[in-house]
């Protein structure tokens, strides 16, 4: 059970950011819409079970980064729509810069290794 939780926590870091970014760009969306969007952006490279999205959404909502309400979908079905909050937008800013910094460090390392070899 511990292993499962670890994996989802790692996923949560990236998945959460992807969700927030999606909601920031596209506005309020239901779960399926978010899943589709992530698949499109990642060009299906992310072999992700769509189901794992829902616990992640719950987590983000609990943290106050997104909010949700029930509304009517395109073909007039009741669906739950998620939208980003102000705190969520701030979160994207900090997470994005952290990602960039981390990516910069990693690529510097990779570069250094190449030089050394």
């Amino acid at each position: 059970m511990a292993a499962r939780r670890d994996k989802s926590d790692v996923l949560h870091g990236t998945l959460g950011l992807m969700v927030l970014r999606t909601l920031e760009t596209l506005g309020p969306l239901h779960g399926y819409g978010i899943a589709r969007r992530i698949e499109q952006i990642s060009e299906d490279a992310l072999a992700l079970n769509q189901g794992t999205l829902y616990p992640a959404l719950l987590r983000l909502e609990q943290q106050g980064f997104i909010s949700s309400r029930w509304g009517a979908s395109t073909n007039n079905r009741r669906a739950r729509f998620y939208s980003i909050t102000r705190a969520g937008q701030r979160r994207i800013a900090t997470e994005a810069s952290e990602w960039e910094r981390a990516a910069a460090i990693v690529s510097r390392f990779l570069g250094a290794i190449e030089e050394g070899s």
Partner: protein
Amino acid sequence: VTELRIWASRLGALFHRGRRERELREELRLHLEMQVEDNLQQGMSPEEARFDAMRKFGPIEQVKEEYRDRRGVPVIENGLRDLRHSTRVLRRAPGFTLVAIATLAVGIGAGTSVFSVVNAVLLSSLAVPNPQDLRVLQWTGTEGRIPSLAEQAVVSGPRVSAYSFPYPLFTSLRDAAQNVADVFGFIPIDGVAVRARGDVFAADGVMVSDNFFEGLGVQPVLGRLPAASGGDHGATSVVITHEWWERLFAREPGVLGQAIILNGSAFEVIGVLPSSFAGVLPGERREFYVSTSSRPQFFREPFQTFTSNRHWWVRLMARLRPGSRDAALVARLTAAFAAQAGEFLKDPEVLVLPGRAGLGVDREHYARPLLLMLVAVGLVMLVACANLAGLAMARGAARQHELAVRVAIGAGRWPLVRQALVESLLLALSGGSLGLLLAIWGRTAISRLLAGSENGLHYDLSLDLRVLAFSLALALVTALLAGLLPALRAGQLDPLDALQSRGARGKRQVRIGKALIVAQVGLSLVLLAGAGLYLRSLAHLRGLDPGFRTDDILTFEVNPASVGYQDAQITAFIERLQDALATVPGVESASFVQYPLLDDKRWSVGFAVPGHDLGPPAEVRTHRLLVGERFFETMGIPLVSGRAFRTDDTVDSPKVAVVNEAFVRKYLPGQNPLGQVVKIFGVDWQVVGISRDAKYENVKTRVPETVYNSFRQYPIRVRSAFVVRTAVLPLALSDAVRKAVAAIDPAIPVVHLASQTRLRDANISRERLLASLCGALAGLSWLLSCIGVHGLMAYQVARRGHEIAIRMAIGAKAREIAGGIVRDALLLSLFGIGLGIPVVLAMSRLLESQLFGVKPHDPATLALAIAALLAVALLGGWVPARRAARVSPLTALRIE
């Protein structure tokens, strides 16, 4: 802050769980629907579209589970859900649930009842501060020659020991122990005539040294207590128990200063003890406390009981001073004791024993039966556990399909295990609560049985925290034991295996179920054999002939000495009462007797027959009893030769005696005892009659050599009893007897009114208790085994329905099928019996000391127990076997 927020949200999610759960389902369903629609638009076939959607989504149950884990507080939620689920599951199987709860209720009820008595008798402490500092003093030595000892000394090998000390020795010991411990003493005084608020009755009290209450650390709820430093603590002041304050004085604060008449003298009530203080003699009802300075009121005669070392009757306790050691106390006390006790004892020593619970002889008396009862209860609980586990397994097997489906669709295993445990916990707790209710009734019943009277033991049997903790622990252990196997099985479930062919299903269940049955039968055998031994022993005791009639005999005691009667007056009182009783309608015959027979009282004296060498003087002893003229006639003890006593055998006429046959057999074999002289304490008693043998102090002991003397020729100082043979039910004459006594002197209370049958029953009350309790427990475990065997066999039949149907279809006879099932059950029982026999043989040795007239390895008892368990197999196997035999191949196969 984020963490706090998350937790707030999680706690919030504990509410409206139903709505949230619906929303989750709705959301996920919508997701899949939209995916399917998109897939369809992309040209997939409907089937493909659905399959692709499911695949992309991943394991849906697992997602839900994870979602729920995050949403609320899983521990609470799961607990609640399991509880709800369990309730539902159990409600759906009412038969199983009822049997399980009833089993547990009876088991836990019995366990709690026994434990509450164990708790009160064996574990509790006096309700005083720091009871662990209290000590009880005991003396020990060899070659004891104590002229007068107020208790039965314990003899082990050459050593004699007892708790009673002479009064002068008490003061020496108290002084010697100074700085190390406070030594305080008390003297139980029995049968005091009490007059309070117009009531006349008899009660027992305690005479205490002035430092008694200080030493114990007891504070009064009202008034004051005598104190060593208190100066004048009045020879005529009395402290009463809380119970008396309630009963006699309706809890009036004005009780202080009021007078109570004790043995004819007025005593002023100066204090009331707290209700928590039950005295230092656990189990004894003692209602008042007077100071040793009040001695003249209680001991009119010139007994030199407080100034001479000849009378050993003061019990001693001590409270160790902080920082002192037992060894130091022992050294000082032994030195002081040896200096004065040399006249009566060799190697005198004082032992310092734990006094936390006071000076209780009961503790030793009841320890063994109580512990044995606990063991019996433990065995029954084990049977119950095995039984429940077996039933739960069989049920688990029936539910295996459901469980397998749950595992297959991604439910974790832990929830299944948890579910099984919660179920058994729920059962155990429901059974436990019912059991507690049973225990409220049961503890009184046990206490009554132990005491052999309606009043029960004088112990505080309240269900305190310790008892509650015990029954909770019992319930939890039961839940764990009974729930563990099914839980583990649920955890190991292999869905593929379980969902496969029905025939292969549940083989392991059956194996474990069989092992459980074997265990139940084995344990039941132990219980049945134990109960059988006790019952046979009881039957033997019941059949014992005391040598006199016990039906239609009423006994009671009076104590004219307690209100100031002296020698000749006492004799006159007895004469008058004997005559008065004889005229009461319904009385056939009445006589004085020193004390009732079979009342655990005895008087043993050394004697000589001049001209005969009977052996070493220390061993030439006989029981002695003072009786009236009509004693032999009333009790129905025939005289073999010679005569009974007559009214003209008086103080002034030659002293005469009647001896029993046992006396003649042992001391004067082959001679004519009539006319011989028995010399007791320097007085010659001429034998004028020989009586048939009769039991004396207890129906369990052998007939002792006995010398009877007439009360007219021996001054009476102690209590007197009467035996009355009645033409009606003995106790129906109680009031008439009281009136007859009151007509002579209304100040003399009648005490210990009882039928001789009750005294006789009291002799064997412990055995009866053990027999009935063990019998009940064994019966319970027998019944449980029946249910267990039936459950397993019924399950087997259901499981093998297919196979049976095929066998019948190809020509097997119904009788063969049924026979096979009964044979299976018999084999299991035989196996259990085989395992149980060695245990029975080992265990019955432990019971040996408590058995009468039956050997611990009594083959008949064992055979009966085995027969009873084979009957279990037949009974438990019969019903399912018949069902199997009635299987119609057609229907059975169609169901498949």
